[in-house]
């Protein structure tokens, strides 16, 4: 018999007085907290802040590209803006977003633990994130950096007069936040599962974050080393990447992409986890082929490390290396296809409703499918030559990372908002926001596939006039997309005070997190639960409800 806390649900329409938010008061109680839920909230606030900075920069980029001339700003300014857009969005938003906010909040609860394995290291990683973020902002304000977020050498080491060192060190520091978070998750999932919580009873969200953590711990140090080498080359001229000193500029590409390709999976895997939870909940079904979905996450994590050179097909790696990396890239596309079909078939014979998280998840499915399929265009060596370094690649990775990752993030934020705050978001307007986001997104990025096919290169402040019509569409779409992102920002804050009281389990979902009060107590569970039911066991949930009713009656 499980001993999960079951407080009476909708009967008392009040947010419980004692919870992790009200437990202690004052700024210091937040800044020195060891509570994984509070740290998650700290992350949520800071990540949202950086997302809006990155978004504003994106808006400026789209405004500049409205006309073929470089007339809104000088080329140098444009270069700095797209560099900062990339740096902020990748390192300060996409990489930490789901793991650091939702993952931090939910993983301990989902496995029946009181906290993460190392609460103080968890707090430290937030401070490292904040330090990295602040340094990045400082670099931006004091002159910016214009190397592109990829820091390509020898551009970054010898030919740029901007704040490469500051930005490089900022990312180096923020990287440790990522490493520590990954480490914390891995240890927590291994050591702190509640009795009965076997590996194959883990929610898929935990599996996905576990896989991403492995990538963070193994990949991020390589990025850190690479950035240190860039800084050393720039300051003392060690010459690892300098051909006149016997170094090799291609080596930088290898090192950089050895992290930055897996980084794509660090970003997208936790998103996969969110989608699995949401689709299961709103179709009231166990995920179709749970094991396949769990293992495909691990397969992506493992294969993800062996495809980095597909960023370098035109860069002078040997023809046979191209063959190997092209083949491996095709193989890594397969687990993603498996997931898409498994999610689609989860709907089969389900009992489906279309609340906001589900709408975002549907949006994710469409956009990620397009993003994934266009990735195959780039993985196939012959077509990659024509499409790489054009707007096709810009569209592709925005479909995967913004269309995929950001939709998943928004889906997850709406899904767990009642658990995190005890309040519901307003349903109608959030459904509208989800639809607006989807339309805006497609209008922004679909024309960029066509631009890429036509050959428009990326990172251009000015472009030949025949590309204008598609750029106008794209900028118009970006405006709509901007509205789609601002709406949740407004109504979610509104809901903190005026939202309907959520109750413990507004979605009638199965996870452990839904069996405790909303918002949770600081210690999550009053007694550590013993898990007897299977994961996504909706029949068990029904029996629980009947059980409660008979007891109350």
């Amino acid at each position, binding site marked *: 018999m499980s001993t999960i806390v079951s407080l009476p649900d909708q009967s008392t329409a009040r947010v419980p007085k004692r919870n992790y938010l009200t437990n202690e008061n004052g700024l210091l109680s937040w800044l020195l907290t060891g509570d994984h839920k509070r740290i998650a909230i700290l992350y949520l606030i800071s990540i949202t802040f950086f997302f809006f900075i990155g978004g504003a920069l994106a808006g400026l980029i789209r405004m500049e590209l409205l006309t073929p001339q470089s007339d809104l700003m000088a080329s140098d300014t444009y270069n700095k803006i797209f560099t900062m857009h990339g740096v902020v969005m990748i390192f300060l938003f996409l990489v930490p977003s789901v793991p650091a906010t939702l993952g931090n909040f939910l993983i301990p609860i989902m496995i029946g633990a009181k906290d993460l394995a190392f609460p103080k290291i968890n707090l430290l990683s937030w401070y490292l994130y904040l330090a990295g973020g602040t340094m990045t902002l400082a670099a931006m304000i004091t002159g910016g950096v214009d190397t592109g977020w990829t820091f390509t050498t020898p551009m970054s080491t010898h030919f740029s007069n901007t704040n490469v060192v500051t930005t490089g060190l900022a990312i180096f520091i923020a990287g440790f936040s990522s490493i520590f978070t990954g480490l914390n998750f891995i240890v927590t999932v291994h050591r702190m599962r509640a009795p009965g919580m076997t590996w194959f009873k883990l929610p898929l969200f935990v599996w996905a974050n576990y896989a991403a953590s492995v990538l963070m711990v193994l990949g991020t140090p390589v990025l850190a080393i690479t950035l240190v080498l860039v800084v050393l080359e720039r300051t003392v001229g060690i010459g690892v990447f300098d051909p006149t000193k016997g170094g090799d500029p291609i080596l930088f590409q290898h090192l950089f992409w050895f992290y930055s390709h897996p980084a794509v999976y660090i970003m997208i895997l936790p998103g996969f986890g969110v989608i699995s939870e949401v689709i299961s909940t709103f179709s009231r079904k166990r995920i179709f082929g749970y094991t*396949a979905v769990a293992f495909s996450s691990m397969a992506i994590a493992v294969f993800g490390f062996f495809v980095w050179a597909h960023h370098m097909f035109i860069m002078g790696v040997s023809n046979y290396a191209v063959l190997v990396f092209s083949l491996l890239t095709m193989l890594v596309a397969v687990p993603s296809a498996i997931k898409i079909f*498994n999610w689609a078939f989860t709907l089969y014979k389900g009992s489906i409703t279309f609340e906001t998280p589900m709408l975002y998840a*549907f949006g994710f499915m469409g956009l990620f499918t397009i993003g994934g399929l266009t990735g195959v265009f780039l993985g*196939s060596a012959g077509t990659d*030559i024509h499409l790489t370094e054009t707007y096709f690649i810009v569209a592709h990775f925005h479909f995967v990372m913004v269309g995929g990752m950001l939709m998943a993030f928004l889906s997850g934020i709406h899904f767990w908002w009642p658990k995190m705050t005890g309040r519901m978001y307003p349903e109608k307007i959030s459904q509208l926001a989800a639809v607006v986001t989807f339309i805006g997104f497609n209008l922004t990025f679909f024309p960029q596939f*066509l631009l890429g*096919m036509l*050959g428009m290169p990326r*990172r251009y402040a000015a472009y030949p006039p025949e590309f204008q019509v598609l750029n106008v569409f794209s900028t118009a779409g970006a405006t709509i997309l901007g509205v789609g992102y601002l709406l949740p920002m407004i109504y979610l804050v509104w809901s903190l005070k005026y939202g309907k009281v959520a109750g413990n389990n507004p979605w009638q979902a199965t996870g452990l997190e839904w069996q405790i009060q909303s918002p949770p107590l600081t210690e999550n569970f009053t007694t550590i639960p013993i898990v007897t039911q299977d994961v996504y066991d909706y029949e068990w949930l029904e029996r629980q409800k009947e059980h409660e009713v008979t007891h109350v009656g």
Partner: protein
Amino acid sequence: MDHLSPVIWQFLIKWLTNFAVIPPEASRIAPQVDALLVFMTLVSLVGLTLVALLMTAFSILYRRDRNPVATQIEGSTLLEATWTIIPLGLFLVMFVWGSVLYFRIYTPPPNAMNIYVVGKQWMWKAEHPGGQHEINSLHVPINQPVQLTMISQDVFHSFSIPAFRVKREAIPGRYTTVWFEATAVGTYHLFCTQYCGTAHSAMIGEVVVQSPEDYKKWLAGSTSGVSLAQNGERLFASLSCNACHNGQPNSRGPSLADVYGSKLNLTTGQPVLVDEAYLRQAILNPSAHITEGYAPIMPTYQGQISEEGLISLVEYIKNLSSNYRVQQTLNTSALLPESPDKKAAGAQGVAKP
């Protein structure tokens, strides 16, 4: 209609009429690349439609009001195997097809004519063997395979001609090559697609494909009077390379006649194929590969010769087919009274301080 909005009207007329989804096909390889692109687009559309159809159909059939209680299903090995194996098969087809194409795009035919391209912040400089130089433009004859040997003088650049469906990075410190055979007379975009700093988006040029007659006319009209090889010959003399590489049996350096394309034995025991890249490295970093039977005494010319100068030297050495030419160099340089040292010959190739 134009009373609606003159701006929108003009927009429609001016741009929508020129709207294209695929750039012109102007090279031998372009239709082959497009065939694969079309195949991939079709497969993607089928895949996307399938996912969309499944989701729409299930959403309609199994929405809560029609189907209040879900039926729990574990999964289905058969179905899952299907959607693992079919995508895998399709991806493998794309892999093989794409790889065949890749080898075709980057393997030049033996009869290709060679043009050198140097990328620098922020221009493309093309050097024709006849000594014609051009900046941000490239003239090529139609129906003739052309190989570009490229290098960058500073940062990464990338040479892209969308109408030809080819692209290749120009990398500091090493030669890369790309080839194409233009099939339609006209002027096409030439882009730098690798971000290279301030004026990256201004590093646009044009590729002019001409009929053989027009191309000959252009060559004749733009010649500087000194071919690359001749310029290389002057450099060879002014840098005193001929003091050792003079083809005499007892000279300090090996003879360079017919060396291009041959296999040399190094003191390490390894054979090496002499190509452009090897020649360039041998000039800049001579002690790294010493030919069997010679002492490692050649000084490095790192920092003393510009990339254009190196190209001239390489072109000169490539064309050396007998001792007679080396002998002639010795004579020519002796007969050139006003250019006895590096500085005078430097205008064409010696690196500026």
